[in-house]
Protein backbone atom coordinates (compact mmCIF):
# COMPACT_ATOMS: atom_id res chain seq x y z
CA UNK A 1 0.00 0.00 0.00
CA UNK A 2 1.66 3.22 -1.05
CA UNK A 3 -1.06 5.63 0.10
CA UNK A 4 -1.60 7.13 3.51
CA UNK A 5 -4.27 8.31 5.87
CA UNK A 6 -4.58 10.30 9.09
CA UNK A 7 -5.33 7.99 11.99
CA UNK A 8 -5.74 10.61 14.72
CA UNK A 9 -4.86 14.16 15.73
CA UNK A 10 -4.08 15.51 19.20
CA UNK A 11 -4.46 19.23 19.89
CA UNK A 12 -3.64 21.50 22.84
CA UNK A 13 -4.28 25.23 22.53
CA UNK A 14 -4.68 28.30 24.66
CA UNK A 15 -8.41 27.65 24.38
CA UNK A 16 -8.06 24.25 26.06
CA UNK A 17 -7.49 20.59 25.32
CA UNK A 18 -8.65 19.27 21.95
CA UNK A 19 -10.51 20.78 19.03
CA UNK A 20 -13.84 20.73 20.87
CA UNK A 21 -12.49 23.40 23.24
CA UNK A 22 -12.09 25.88 20.37
CA UNK A 23 -14.57 28.77 20.48
CA UNK A 24 -16.95 29.38 17.56
CA UNK A 25 -15.17 32.69 16.86
CA UNK A 26 -11.62 33.19 18.09
CA UNK A 27 -11.51 36.96 17.57
CA UNK A 28 -14.68 37.47 19.59
CA UNK A 29 -13.56 35.05 22.29
CA UNK A 30 -10.22 36.81 22.57
CA UNK A 31 -12.04 40.05 23.48
CA UNK A 32 -9.09 42.21 22.56
CA UNK A 33 -6.33 40.02 23.97
CA UNK A 34 -3.43 39.73 21.53
CA UNK A 35 -2.05 36.47 22.89
CA UNK A 36 -3.97 33.50 24.23
CA UNK A 37 -1.42 31.61 26.28
CA UNK A 38 -1.67 27.89 26.84
CA UNK A 39 -1.93 26.56 30.38
CA UNK A 40 1.43 25.11 31.44
CA UNK A 41 1.35 21.35 30.89
CA UNK A 42 1.11 19.16 33.98
CA UNK A 43 4.41 19.00 35.85
CA UNK A 44 6.04 15.92 34.41
CA UNK A 45 8.67 15.25 37.02
CA UNK A 46 12.38 15.67 37.27
CA UNK A 47 12.94 14.20 33.85
CA UNK A 48 11.82 17.55 32.42
CA UNK A 49 13.45 19.88 34.91
CA UNK A 50 15.58 21.54 32.20
CA UNK A 51 13.07 21.44 29.41
CA UNK A 52 11.52 24.60 28.08
CA UNK A 53 7.82 25.31 27.85
CA UNK A 54 7.71 24.55 24.14
CA UNK A 55 9.30 21.13 24.75
CA UNK A 56 6.64 20.31 27.32
CA UNK A 57 3.97 21.39 24.86
CA UNK A 58 5.40 19.07 22.22
CA UNK A 59 5.18 16.17 24.65
CA UNK A 60 1.65 17.21 25.63
CA UNK A 61 0.56 17.19 21.97
CA UNK A 62 1.83 13.65 21.50
CA UNK A 63 0.08 12.58 24.71
CA UNK A 64 -3.12 14.17 23.41
CA UNK A 65 -2.68 12.26 20.16
CA UNK A 66 -2.25 8.95 21.95
CA UNK A 67 -5.42 9.62 23.96
CA UNK A 68 -7.36 10.45 20.78
CA UNK A 69 -6.07 7.31 19.12
CA UNK A 70 -6.58 5.15 22.22
CA UNK A 71 -2.98 4.04 21.96
CA UNK A 72 -0.31 3.51 24.57
CA UNK A 73 3.17 4.96 24.13
CA UNK A 74 4.54 1.54 23.15
CA UNK A 75 2.56 1.82 19.90
CA UNK A 76 4.90 4.54 18.63
CA UNK A 77 8.20 3.59 20.31
CA UNK A 78 11.14 2.58 18.11
CA UNK A 79 12.73 3.11 14.72
CA UNK A 80 9.61 2.56 12.65
CA UNK A 81 8.09 5.88 13.68
CA UNK A 82 9.15 9.00 11.80
CA UNK A 83 8.99 12.38 13.51
CA UNK A 84 8.34 15.48 11.44
CA UNK A 85 8.41 18.71 13.44
CA UNK A 86 7.37 22.11 12.18
CA UNK A 87 7.42 25.52 13.79
CA UNK A 88 7.52 29.12 12.67
CA UNK A 89 8.89 30.51 15.91
CA UNK A 90 8.60 28.27 18.98
CA UNK A 91 12.36 28.72 19.40
CA UNK A 92 11.75 32.46 19.97
CA UNK A 93 11.34 32.38 23.74
CA UNK A 94 14.39 30.21 24.36
CA UNK A 95 16.48 32.34 22.00
CA UNK A 96 15.33 35.51 23.75
CA UNK A 97 16.08 34.08 27.18
CA UNK A 98 19.60 33.17 26.08
CA UNK A 99 20.30 36.47 24.32
CA UNK A 100 19.08 38.47 27.29
CA UNK A 101 20.78 36.13 29.81
CA UNK A 102 17.45 35.44 31.46
CA UNK A 103 18.22 31.73 31.50
CA UNK A 104 21.51 30.22 32.69
CA UNK A 105 23.68 29.46 29.74
CA UNK A 106 25.04 25.92 29.80
CA UNK A 107 21.81 24.08 30.44
CA UNK A 108 19.80 26.46 28.35
CA UNK A 109 21.82 26.75 25.17
CA UNK A 110 20.92 23.33 23.69
CA UNK A 111 17.28 24.29 24.15
CA UNK A 112 17.63 27.29 21.86
CA UNK A 113 17.86 24.98 18.86
CA UNK A 114 14.60 24.20 17.04
CA UNK A 115 15.68 20.56 17.32
CA UNK A 116 15.19 20.67 21.11
CA UNK A 117 11.42 20.14 20.90
CA UNK A 118 11.55 16.99 18.76
CA UNK A 119 14.53 15.83 20.82
CA UNK A 120 12.55 15.89 24.07
CA UNK A 121 9.64 14.17 22.31
CA UNK A 122 11.98 11.54 20.86
CA UNK A 123 13.56 10.93 24.27
CA UNK A 124 10.21 10.74 26.04
CA UNK A 125 8.60 8.34 23.59
CA UNK A 126 11.72 6.45 22.44
CA UNK A 127 11.49 7.56 18.81
CA UNK A 128 14.50 6.55 16.74
CA UNK A 129 13.16 6.66 13.20
CA UNK A 130 13.52 9.25 10.41
CA UNK A 131 13.62 12.87 11.45
CA UNK A 132 12.72 16.09 9.62
CA UNK A 133 12.48 19.58 11.10
CA UNK A 134 11.01 22.38 9.00
CA UNK A 135 10.86 26.06 9.87
CA UNK A 136 7.91 28.11 8.72
CA UNK A 137 4.23 28.59 9.31
CA UNK A 138 1.29 26.65 7.95
CA UNK A 139 2.85 26.23 4.49
CA UNK A 140 5.77 24.41 6.12
CA UNK A 141 3.35 22.10 7.91
CA UNK A 142 1.82 21.17 4.56
CA UNK A 143 5.40 20.44 3.39
CA UNK A 144 5.86 18.34 6.53
CA UNK A 145 2.66 16.35 6.07
CA UNK A 146 3.69 15.62 2.50
CA UNK A 147 7.17 14.56 3.72
CA UNK A 148 5.40 12.15 6.06
CA UNK A 149 3.48 10.58 3.17
CA UNK A 150 6.75 10.21 1.23
CA UNK A 151 8.51 8.50 4.12
CA UNK A 152 5.63 6.03 4.33
CA UNK A 153 5.58 5.50 0.58
CA UNK A 154 9.32 4.82 0.49
CA UNK A 155 8.94 2.30 3.29
CA UNK A 156 11.28 4.22 5.58
CA UNK A 157 8.75 4.09 8.42
CA UNK A 158 5.49 2.43 9.40
CA UNK A 159 3.92 5.55 10.85
CA UNK A 160 4.75 9.23 11.05
CA UNK A 161 4.06 11.82 13.71
CA UNK A 162 3.68 15.33 12.32
CA UNK A 163 4.11 17.70 15.24
CA UNK A 164 3.80 21.47 15.41
CA UNK A 165 4.33 23.81 18.37
CA UNK A 166 3.95 27.59 18.63
CA UNK A 167 4.38 29.85 21.66
CA UNK A 168 4.02 33.62 21.78
CA UNK A 169 3.81 34.88 25.35
CA UNK A 170 7.51 35.53 25.98
CA UNK A 171 7.84 37.42 22.69
CA UNK A 172 4.49 39.22 22.66
CA UNK A 173 6.18 42.62 22.26
CA UNK A 174 8.23 41.37 19.32
CA UNK A 175 5.16 39.95 17.61
CA UNK A 176 3.47 43.31 18.10
CA UNK A 177 6.20 44.88 15.94
CA UNK A 178 5.32 42.47 13.13
CA UNK A 179 1.66 43.31 12.94
CA UNK A 180 1.68 42.86 9.20
CA UNK A 181 2.89 39.27 9.57
CA UNK A 182 0.20 37.88 11.82
CA UNK A 183 -3.40 38.66 12.73
CA UNK A 184 -4.35 38.47 16.42
CA UNK A 185 -5.27 36.67 18.49
CA UNK A 186 -2.02 34.74 18.54
CA UNK A 187 -3.00 31.46 20.10
CA UNK A 188 -0.34 29.23 21.60
CA UNK A 189 -0.77 25.68 20.40
CA UNK A 190 0.71 22.27 19.98
CA UNK A 191 -0.74 19.64 17.69
CA UNK A 192 0.29 16.22 16.47
CA UNK A 193 -1.14 14.08 13.68
CA UNK A 194 -0.53 10.35 13.26
CA UNK A 195 -0.15 9.50 9.58
CA UNK A 196 -0.16 5.82 8.63
CA UNK A 197 -0.29 3.70 5.47
CA UNK A 198 -3.75 3.89 3.99
CA UNK A 199 -5.88 4.24 0.89
CA UNK A 200 -5.61 7.99 0.30
CA UNK A 201 -3.46 9.39 -2.46
CA UNK A 202 -1.76 12.68 -1.59
CA UNK A 203 -1.17 15.40 -4.16
CA UNK A 204 1.17 18.22 -3.15
CA UNK A 205 1.01 21.47 -5.09
CA UNK A 206 0.80 25.23 -4.59
CA UNK A 207 -2.73 26.29 -3.65
CA UNK A 208 -4.29 29.40 -5.21
CA UNK A 209 -6.73 29.99 -2.36
CA UNK A 210 -7.41 28.85 1.20
CA UNK A 211 -9.34 25.63 1.55
CA UNK A 212 -12.54 25.71 3.62
CA UNK A 213 -10.68 23.91 6.42
CA UNK A 214 -7.93 26.53 6.47
CA UNK A 215 -10.55 29.25 6.85
CA UNK A 216 -12.37 27.27 9.54
CA UNK A 217 -9.21 26.72 11.59
CA UNK A 218 -8.41 30.42 11.43
CA UNK A 219 -11.94 31.40 12.45
CA UNK A 220 -12.18 28.93 15.35
CA UNK A 221 -8.61 28.88 16.67
CA UNK A 222 -7.14 32.23 15.66
CA UNK A 223 -3.55 32.63 14.52
CA UNK A 224 -1.73 29.37 15.23
CA UNK A 225 0.93 29.48 12.49
CA UNK A 226 2.42 26.01 11.97
CA UNK A 227 -0.28 24.33 14.06
CA UNK A 228 -3.09 25.54 11.80
CA UNK A 229 -3.28 22.64 9.29
CA UNK A 230 -3.22 20.09 12.10
CA UNK A 231 -5.94 21.97 13.97
CA UNK A 232 -7.88 22.01 10.70
CA UNK A 233 -7.58 18.22 10.52
CA UNK A 234 -8.75 17.91 14.11
CA UNK A 235 -11.76 20.15 13.42
CA UNK A 236 -12.75 18.05 10.43
CA UNK A 237 -12.56 14.89 12.52
CA UNK A 238 -14.46 16.50 15.40
CA UNK A 239 -17.26 17.26 12.92
CA UNK A 240 -17.38 13.60 11.99
CA UNK A 241 -15.27 13.76 8.83
CA UNK A 242 -12.31 11.42 9.18
CA UNK A 243 -12.02 10.91 5.46
CA UNK A 244 -9.57 12.34 2.94
CA UNK A 245 -9.47 16.13 2.99
CA UNK A 246 -7.92 19.08 1.17
CA UNK A 247 -5.51 20.98 3.39
CA UNK A 248 -3.85 24.28 2.66
CA UNK A 249 -1.51 26.48 4.63
CA UNK A 250 -0.08 29.91 4.00
CA UNK A 251 3.06 31.59 5.32
CA UNK A 252 4.48 34.88 4.15
CA UNK A 253 3.10 34.78 0.64
CA UNK A 254 3.38 31.06 -0.13
CA UNK A 255 0.32 28.86 0.11
CA UNK A 256 0.96 25.12 -0.14
CA UNK A 257 -1.71 22.48 -0.58
CA UNK A 258 -2.01 18.80 0.19
CA UNK A 259 -5.04 17.15 -1.38
CA UNK A 260 -5.84 13.73 -0.04
CA UNK A 261 -8.23 11.69 -2.17
CA UNK A 262 -9.68 8.25 -1.80
CA UNK A 263 -7.70 6.01 -4.11
Amino acid sequence: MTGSEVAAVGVVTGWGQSAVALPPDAVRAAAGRRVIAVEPPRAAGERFRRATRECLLGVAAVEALLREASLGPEAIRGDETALVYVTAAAYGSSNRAFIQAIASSTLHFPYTAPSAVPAEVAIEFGLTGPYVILIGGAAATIDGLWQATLLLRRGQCRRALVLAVETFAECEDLWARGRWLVRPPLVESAACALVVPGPWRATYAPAPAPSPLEALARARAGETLACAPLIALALARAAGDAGPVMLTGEWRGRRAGLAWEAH
Partner: protein
Amino acid sequence: MDPKEVLDELKTILVTRLKFDPRRAADMTFETALPKGVEGSIGLDSLDFIELSIAIEERFGIVMDESQDLAEHFQSFDTLCGFVAARTEAA
Protein backbone atom coordinates in the same frame (compact mmCIF):
# COMPACT_ATOMS: atom_id res chain seq x y z
CA MET B 1 33.86 27.37 54.69
CA ASP B 2 32.77 24.26 56.54
CA PRO B 3 31.28 21.38 54.53
CA LYS B 4 27.71 22.03 55.77
CA GLU B 5 27.84 25.60 54.47
CA VAL B 6 29.19 24.32 51.19
CA LEU B 7 26.36 21.79 50.98
CA ASP B 8 23.76 24.51 51.49
CA GLU B 9 25.37 26.62 48.76
CA LEU B 10 25.43 23.66 46.40
CA LYS B 11 21.76 22.98 47.09
CA THR B 12 21.00 26.58 46.19
CA ILE B 13 22.91 26.10 42.94
CA LEU B 14 20.91 22.96 42.22
CA VAL B 15 17.71 24.96 42.50
CA THR B 16 18.75 28.21 40.82
CA ARG B 17 21.02 26.84 38.10
CA LEU B 18 20.06 23.18 37.62
CA LYS B 19 16.34 23.78 38.08
CA PHE B 20 15.70 21.21 40.77
CA ASP B 21 12.56 21.58 42.85
CA PRO B 22 13.44 23.29 46.19
CA ARG B 23 11.70 20.57 48.19
CA ARG B 24 13.75 17.93 46.43
CA ALA B 25 16.95 19.86 47.12
CA ALA B 26 16.05 20.23 50.78
CA ASP B 27 15.96 16.43 51.13
CA MET B 28 19.47 15.96 49.72
CA THR B 29 22.24 14.98 52.12
CA PHE B 30 25.99 14.42 52.04
CA GLU B 31 25.31 10.81 51.10
CA THR B 32 23.23 11.70 48.05
CA ALA B 33 24.92 10.39 44.90
CA LEU B 34 25.13 12.77 41.93
CA PRO B 35 25.82 11.02 38.61
CA LYS B 36 23.10 9.49 36.45
CA GLY B 37 23.16 5.71 36.47
CA VAL B 38 24.08 5.39 40.14
CA GLU B 39 21.29 3.95 42.26
CA GLY B 40 19.51 6.60 44.30
CA SER B 41 21.37 9.44 42.61
CA ILE B 42 19.85 12.74 41.58
CA GLY B 43 20.68 11.84 37.97
CA LEU B 44 23.11 14.53 36.83
CA ASP B 45 24.43 14.10 33.31
CA SER B 46 27.35 15.67 31.44
CA LEU B 47 25.44 18.87 30.70
CA ASP B 48 24.50 19.25 34.38
CA PHE B 49 28.11 18.71 35.47
CA ILE B 50 29.34 21.49 33.18
CA GLU B 51 26.71 23.87 34.55
CA LEU B 52 27.52 22.81 38.10
CA SER B 53 31.26 23.29 37.56
CA ILE B 54 30.76 26.77 36.14
CA ALA B 55 28.43 27.68 39.01
CA ILE B 56 30.94 26.40 41.56
CA GLU B 57 33.72 28.40 39.92
CA GLU B 58 31.60 31.55 40.02
CA ARG B 59 30.23 31.09 43.53
CA PHE B 60 33.38 29.90 45.28
CA GLY B 61 35.99 31.71 43.22
CA ILE B 62 37.93 28.56 42.40
CA VAL B 63 39.15 27.36 39.03
CA MET B 64 38.58 23.84 37.76
CA ASP B 65 41.45 22.47 35.74
CA GLU B 66 39.82 20.95 32.64
CA SER B 67 42.86 18.91 31.81
CA GLN B 68 42.35 16.92 35.01
CA ASP B 69 39.75 14.23 35.41
CA LEU B 70 37.63 15.56 38.24
CA ALA B 71 34.95 12.86 38.05
CA GLU B 72 35.90 11.32 41.42
CA HIS B 73 35.02 14.58 43.17
CA PHE B 74 31.54 14.65 41.62
CA GLN B 75 30.35 11.28 42.90
CA SER B 76 28.35 12.56 45.84
CA PHE B 77 27.78 15.74 47.82
CA ASP B 78 30.23 14.41 50.35
CA THR B 79 33.10 14.20 47.85
CA LEU B 80 32.10 17.45 46.15
CA CYS B 81 31.84 19.44 49.38
CA GLY B 82 35.21 18.12 50.42
CA PHE B 83 36.72 19.13 47.09
CA VAL B 84 35.24 22.61 47.21
CA ALA B 85 36.16 23.16 50.85
CA ALA B 86 39.76 22.13 50.18
CA ARG B 87 40.03 24.36 47.10
CA THR B 88 38.55 27.42 48.83
CA GLU B 89 40.96 26.93 51.72
CA ALA B 90 43.89 26.67 49.32
CA ALA B 91 42.75 29.74 47.40
